[in-house]
């Protein structure tokens, strides 16, 4: 019989101390949402997998250097976002996306499951057109459910800057999406 009690703060202390069980829980708790977020960021499953792994390893290494009360979730997303933007910048991942085919398929397929698959690919394709920092804010807010205040703390930018970025990202996304819907590009 073992008891693993994690009081607020104590959990962070356990993580800072490199406690393997506490880290197990963290990895299991966040790997699904982090890997999906990273997949939407980079549009490449293998890369998303590597980045997810890397996020946890970086967190593990950096954890002992952190101080005070730490919002673990935001902190992991910060590492993940920086990782992804860094990779996007370095690789200049501008992937080709079959706009017209995708749009055509979605009109032809009657199976709703497949429609939603195609739909998701379309959304990811449009997202991929946006610069990393806009994509990140859009995904964090509209997909991952963080509010502007949390995103500001996460990315180390002011609340006003987050709002402007989110507004701009939504407009950019909307414009790109409508172009696809019209079968352009």
């Amino acid at each position: 019989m073992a008891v693993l009690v994690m009081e607020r703060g104590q959990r962070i202390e356990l993580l800072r101390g490199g406690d393997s069980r506490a880290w197990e829980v963290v990895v299991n708790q966040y790997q699904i949402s982090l890997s999906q977020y990273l997949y939407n960021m980079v549009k490449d499953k293998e890369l998303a997998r590597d980045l997810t792994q890397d996020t946890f390893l970086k967190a593990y290494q950096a954890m002992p250097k952190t101080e005070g009360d730490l919002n673990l979730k935001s902190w992991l997303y910060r590492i993940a976002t920086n990782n992804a933007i860094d990779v996007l910048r370095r690789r200049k991942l501008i992937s080709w996306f079959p706009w017209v085919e995708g749009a055509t398929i979605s009109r032809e397929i009657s199976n709703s499951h497949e429609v939603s698959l195609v739909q998701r690919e379309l959304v990811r394709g449009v997202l991929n057109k946006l610069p990393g920092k806009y994509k990140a804010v859009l995904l964090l807010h509209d997909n991952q459910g963080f509010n502007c205040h949390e995103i500001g703390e996460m990315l180390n930018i002011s609340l006003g800057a987050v709002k402007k970025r989110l507004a701009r990202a939504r407009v950019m996304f909307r414009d790109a999406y409508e172009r696809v819907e019209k079968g352009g590009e």
Partner: protein
Amino acid sequence: MGCRKVRWLLALYDSGELNSEEKEEVEAHLASCQRCRQELDRLSKVPALLQSLQGDTWWADVSSPVRERLNASSATSSLPRAKPIKTEKRGIIKGRPVWQPVLISLVAVIIIVGASLGAIQLWEGDDLTQAAAEAVRNDPQVQAILGGGSMEVTEVEIAGPTAYVSASWGESTVEAQVDVASLNVKTILCATCSSLGPSIYRSELTEDEKAKAIEIAEADPYVRKILSHGLTLGEPSNSSPVLGADPRRVAWLPFEGDAATDEVRGVIVNLDDQDITVMWGGDLPSWWPY
């Protein structure tokens, strides 16, 4: 306020991110501007499109590689070692080291106690390969995935304490990991179960296993104390938050009836050795049975 100035506020109008002053400005403008009303309409679909991504079933299971890397780095780095967890009366309680590397030094011979015969069988080399293949062939979950047909074991690779067995039938293929010491089939990777690529097959616990998990948990005096404070145990599942454990042999029973919380709270029952771990994330209630 003109259209230009209101434009960026419009993009945030639906998301509760505007303060009351900004909201009023937008509403006043919308009342008199048809074009901006249309613009708002076109913008309001964006969050829903982004949310459609949540239908994704793909996600990366990085638990094993992360575990390996962390084990490797904690062995070599100067990071502080894990501290045992203290509770008042129980002194230092350490859980079973689920996450430690399995310290099975498998030489050439694996000894398996044949329960039915009461005899000792020795597996080596090809025999071990055969035995691992047989374990996969007989596994009900593998059979379920492969449709119960006459599956073909295409490859057996033994690496340390684990045998990796690939099997297929028709279009379906699985890769099962078999613990060579016990010949228990552990994780099953199914490459053809989903159109999104290989994923860990997380089967449901059987009804018997669920019942056993509840029985083990409820028999534990410490768990009983916790349950006496208006909590109940939820449906056992194998999506245990314990890394490194065979997901099919460990049941996770969440505590229910608590105020809504996103903390991890529940009981982990190892069905093999009946080991119990209580997990309680967040603040401890005043009644906590130390």
